[in-house]
Structure formats: structure tokens, C-alpha cells
């Protein structure tokens, strides 16, 4: 058909998108290299990477991210599986709950934590550091719930839950071994993509960590941003690289999954 004018518009749109999205990255990169007067250098990166607080907060957030992924999967996979298999009528309710964190802003949720689990509340989790860490992980699981549940549930949709379960049962498998040997292996790519997305959300998260006063990467970033000139740009590039890595791995995982899935699964 008349493809010439329409593809010109498409090219222009992509060009606009390219400029808008790449310009800030380029500007940040250049800015991050200008710490030394005499010319471009990686000095800002050296300062950042040698900062003890950088390493500690990054390590802390990585650990919290991993714990969030584990707790999230342990919570979501059996639930989503059980709902698909035994409680299909409950699915709308469960889905609604998992979508609530998109409705209730994170700052409201963490404010609720501070009131409900504060030092003079009925369960004073914020009274000590480990309790607050637990609260932070639970908060992140809550924030990741919409993405994690969706990833796992669509993964379950792609496999025949009922037949697999009945086959396993007829071979004498109990629930634990069904979950471990049938559900988890089939959901590997769905869980991995949920995990990478969760990690990307958690690693630089600011609001919850800051209000719970935990030494996480997000509050560290904010502190550097308020006090330094060139290091924030270097940190932004590092954070972008981390996000890119998480999302890139997600793409690899889902693409492999597509390749393994039966070709008639969906339109693409």
C-alpha cells in the first residue's frame, strides 16, 4: 500500500524517541566524565566505587533484593497455582489484591507500616534493625506483587496445570513434590523474569527504605545527590547499567521461553 509516507512518519517518530531518550543518557555520561578540570576521566567513578558507603549500601540492597525475590516467589507461586487449580472463582479477588499496590502509593503503604509496626504499636517490628529489615523486605514484596503475580500467573496459563497435576498425582506425588518437581521447573522463565523485574524495582528504591531508615542504595544515592556534583552522574550511569542488565536478562529469559513454547501458543 502507500508505505512510503507512513514509514517516513515512523522514522521521524523513532528519531524523536531516540533523541529524547538518548540525550539525557549522553549528557549524564559526559557530565560524569568531567570531574577533572584537565579533561575527561573516570575520576567520579573511581571516587564512587571506592566509597565504603557505596559498597555497603549496594550490598545491603542486593541482599534485600534477593530476599524479596525468594519471599515473593515462595508466596506467589503456590498461591497462583492453587488458585488456578482449586479456586478459580477466587481469582478475581486475588488478582485485585495483587493489583492494589498500583493503586495505593508506596509512601502511603510505608506510612501505614510506621503506624502499625511502630515502637509503641502491637507488633513493634521497627524496634530493632532485623525487624525493620523484615518489614522492608515485606514492603518490597508488596510493591513487586503486581509484576510478580502477573508473570507467574501468565506462566501458569501457558502450561496445562490440571493435567500436569493429575499426572503427577497418579504417579503418587504429594503437593510438595508437585510444587518442587512439576510447577517450579515449568515456571522457571516466568519466575526469572519476575525476579529480574523485582530486582530492578528494589535496587534503587528510595521512599520505603528512606522512611524505614535502612542503609539502602536509594537513600545513599539521594544523599550523594544532595552533596556532590559529579558523582551523582556517575551513579546514575551505574544505576542505568544495572537496570539495563536486569531487563536484558529478562528479555533473554522470555525469548528462550518463547522458543521453547509450542508455536501455536499465541499470535506472535
Amino acid at each position, binding site marked *: 500500500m502507500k508505505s512510503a509516507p*507512513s514509514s517516513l512518519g*515512523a522514522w521521524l517518530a523513532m528519531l524523536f524517541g531516540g533523541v529524547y531518550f538518548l540525550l539525557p543518557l549522553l549528557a549524564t555520561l559526559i557530565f560524569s566524565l568531567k570531574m577533572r578540570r584537565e579533561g575527561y576521566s573516570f575520576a567520579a567513578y573511581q571516587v564512587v566505587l571506592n566509597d565504603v558507603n557505596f559498597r555497603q549500601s549496594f550490598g545491603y540492597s542486593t541482599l534485600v533484593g534477593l530476599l524479596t525475590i525468594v519471599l515473593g516467589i515462595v508466596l506467589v507461586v503456590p498461591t497462583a497455582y492453587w488458585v488456578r487449580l482449586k479456586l478459580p472463582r477466587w481469582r478475581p479477588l486475588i488478582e485485585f489484591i495483587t493489583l492494589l499496590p498500583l493503586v495505593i*502509593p508506596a509512601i502511603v503503604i510505608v506510612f501505614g507500616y510506621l503506624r502499625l509496626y511502630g515502637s509503641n504499636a502491637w507488633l513493634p517490628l521497627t524496634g530493632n534493625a532485623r525487624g525493620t529489615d523484615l518489614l522492608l523486605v515485606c514492603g518490597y514484596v508488596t510493591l513487586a506483587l503486581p509484576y510478580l503475580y502477573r508473570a507467574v500467573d501468565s506462566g501458569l496459563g501457558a502450561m496445562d496445570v490440571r493435567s500436569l497435576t493429575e499426572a503427577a498425582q497418579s504417579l503418587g506425588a504429594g503437593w510438595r513434590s508437585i510444587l518442587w518437581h512439576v510447577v517450579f521447573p515449568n515456571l522457571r522463565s516466568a519466575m526469572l523474569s519476575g525476579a529480574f523485574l523485582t530486582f530492578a524495582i528494589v535496587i534503587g528504591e528510595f521512599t520505603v527504605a528512606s522512611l524505614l531508615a535502612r542503609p539502602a542504595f536509594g537513600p545513599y544515592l539521594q544523599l550523594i545527590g544532595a552533596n556532590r556534583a559529579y558523582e551523582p552522574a556517575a551513579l546514575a550511569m551505574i544505576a542505568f547499567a544495572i537496570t539495563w542488565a536486569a531487563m536484558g536478562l529478562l528479555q533473554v529469559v522470555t525469548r528462550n521461553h518463547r522458543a521453547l513454547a509450542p508455536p501455536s501458543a499465541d499470535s506472535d
Partner: protein
Amino acid sequence: MTLGLEWSLTAWRRARPVRWPCAGALRLLGVAPFMLFALLFLLLPTGFLLLGAFQDAAGHFTLGNLRRLFERNVLEAFRLSLEVSAASALTGSLLGLGLALAALRAGLPAWMRPTLMTFCGVASNFAGVPLAFAFLSTLGRMGLVTLLLRRYAGFDLYASGFSILSFSGLTLTYLYFQIPLMVLIVTPAIDGLKSEWREACSSLGGSTLDYWRHVALPILWPSLLGSALLLFANAFGAVATAYALTGSSLNIVTILLYAQIRGDVLHDQNLGYALALGMVLVTGLSNAAYIWLRARAERGRE
């Protein structure tokens, strides 16, 4: 605990091949851990705040906190928040739709679409503090674009009234994650348009414009509007980007609430509750609309 129960249940079931006699209540045990978690870390904390909005310091019922929502600086904060969220949601969804349509067009190299989708996945998650740093390096007072414009175009961005710490600056920054988010949400909907519909339209003599006006847009609009509402809630609840850009100098609701919780300003618990209630009302209403529209769109497709 629950797993053990389910397990013994199965053992019992295997022993007697009767089909789930008193299954109703026992089945519910399977979702009990999730429900408990949701109750403890999502529903109760939020419910506690929403109740608190209707109580005074002594725990008696009052509407006084809600009245404080109409104080001048609170109203101003809500107004600016609503403006930034609406502007970034509207612009973001239009530009995101344009970009998604462009990427799906024939005539572009095959590598472009997956590249765009991957990049959108990254950019929609590249929010918060690092995003603020990136925009400060770009459009801040010492930002690259600001300096280049001044040196080569003789145009002083900041003298023209622009500031990264303003409505326009914040909106421009939010668009960096809003546009990609829109591309990600809307692409499946566009993919859902069957090529037969376009062919049917053109075989009946309809032009591209007719196709969009009478076929594609009526099908797409619930998901378009729904996506825009999701973008709106996304911007409305954002804290980190604005805080890292401006500290607490910009008067938007999330920053006001953040300051209240931190006790930076006059510490007033119940005003905090009322702010939280106001925020949940705004995002709740917009998301209720989203869910409703989504259900409608899906019903239309079946």
C-alpha cells in the same frame, strides 16, 4: 504449617478416592499464607491510615482532619500534583501511542521493534533518584543541553523562565518513564487489532482515516484511556524523582506527606492520615476507572 496440612490432606485423599468431601474450607487453606501476608502488609496498614484520617489524637471520630485537606498549601500541593500527573499522563500516552504505532509499522528494520521494547523495559524502570540525576546533568543549571544552548544557540534556558524544579521540568522528567510505560502497555492492544479488520475496511472502500475512526479507535479507546489512567496514578504516587530533583522545595502531595512522616516540618500525625486518604482517593478513583474500562475492553474482544 499449611503445606503440611495440604500434604496430609492429599495423603488422606489418596487413601480414599472420594472427591473432596469437605473441600470448601480446606481448599481455602491454600491461599491462607497469601491472604495473611496481604492483610498484614497491605490491607491493614492502609486501612489503619484511612481510619486514622477520621480520628483525632485521642481516637474519637472527627471530620476535622478532612477539613484540613482544604487548607491553602495542601490544596496547592494537590493541584500541582494533579497537574503534573495529568500532563505527564496525557503527553506520555499520546507520545507512547505514536511511538508504539511507529514501531509496529512495516518499513522499519526488523531489529527496531525488539530494541525499542527492551529499551522501554529499561526506561520505564529507570525512575527515582538516578533519573533525577540524569535530568539535572541534562537540563539543570549546569546541564549539558542548557550549556550547549547558551553557547551555540545563544539561548538562555533559565532566563526564559524554564527550571528543572518546576511544573514543566518535572513533567519533562516524568515523561522519561511514562512514555516507555505507555509503549509497553499499549503494544499488546495494538497487536490485538486483526489485519482482517483493516482489509475488510479497505475492501469496503474505507480510507486509513475511516479505519482509525470507525474500527481501530473504538476498539482501542478503553485500553488507551485505561493506560493513561495507570500512567496518571504512576506519576501521582511518585516521590523519589521529585525529592531528588528538588529536595522538599517543590510543593507536591507526596513530598508534603514525606516531610510530614519524616517530621521535617510541624509534625502533625492526623494531617498525614488525611493526606494519605486524599492520595488513595485520587489513585483509587482513577484505578477503579481503569479496571472498569479494562473489563469493558476485554468483554468487547470476546
